[in-house]
């Protein structure tokens, strides 16, 4: 059981890291932000599995906080950074 969970956490972490590639490559702002969001969800998964594996129920609280605040970064991104008003200008970020 523990071994299986260990392997699974490892795979989850690897899958999380795969998102780094997308952040690195982009090409647009949104792609990067989405990849980060995806990693957040994976992180939540990791945390809940760890809560079971390490018998640390507090980690579920951590996961809860992550889930609760997951939206925040995207929200800030959309509301404050990637605003429709500067549509014309995002071009040079495309490549």
């Amino acid at each position, binding site marked *: 059981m523990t071994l299986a969970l260990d392997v699974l956490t490892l795979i989850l972490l690897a899958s999380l890291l795969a998102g780094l590639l997308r952040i690195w490559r982009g090409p647009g702002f949104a792609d990067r932000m989405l990849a980060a969001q995806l990693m957040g969800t994976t992180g939540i998964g990791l945390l809940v599995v760890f809560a079971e594996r390490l018998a640390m129920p507090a980690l579920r609280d951590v996961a809860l906080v992550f889930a*609760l*605040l997951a939206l925040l970064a995207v929200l800030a991104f959309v509301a404050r950074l990637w605003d429709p008003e500067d549509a014309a200008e995002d071009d040079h970020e495309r490549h």
Partner: protein
Amino acid sequence: MSRLRLAAAATAALGFALALALAVIERPAAVLNLPALVEAEIAGAGALHPITAVLLDFRSFDTLLEVGVLLLAVIVAYALREAQPDGPDRMGLDTPLLRAVISLLLPLMLLVGAYVLWAGATRPGGAFQAGAILAASGLALRLAGLRVGGLDRAWRVHALLALGLAVFVAAAVLPALAGHAMLDHPATLAKTIVIVVEIALTVSIALGLLALFRLAPPQVDGPVFEDRRSKPRGGA
């Protein structure tokens, strides 16, 4: 960036890393066992969770100053706004869906914040984490274009911002007035005092973090710098 700067940075970083590595490798075995001491004394502290006990009892003076740091940062931010007034702020996104979701999530966020605060007495959690969560919910609210009523009334906000430090200082001073060492709460009251202090801290931390976000200059106002740029900047 210049080559020289790069070389200097690399040398500094390398030397730094080597020195640290040396220090870690050569480190002696600690003589003192502080965790055991915490374990032994926790019964007399105001909280059962060791970290909360360290933060709010054994080393509460650190925490008091730390709250001071946060309040101080907020004050500086206020002072800067005073010196350089801002134009109107454009609030955020205006989507009905988002508003609905945020207003749905808000009670939950407050609840989680309260839960984390409450958990701090016995298990991981505490004032700072709770405050951060509440601040984050405030941020979400603002980013979604919603406004929390009454928070713009400066005096009330100031009072809430200062609440944490004020309550903490009061809690520190009370034992001294009763003839004990400063911050030395009688065992019977310790738990109550810790809880009161924690609640006040949560409010102040949440508002403080939120204020630091709000006091940054807002997005939309006239370009201030353009006329300045035209003339050469004065050196020393």
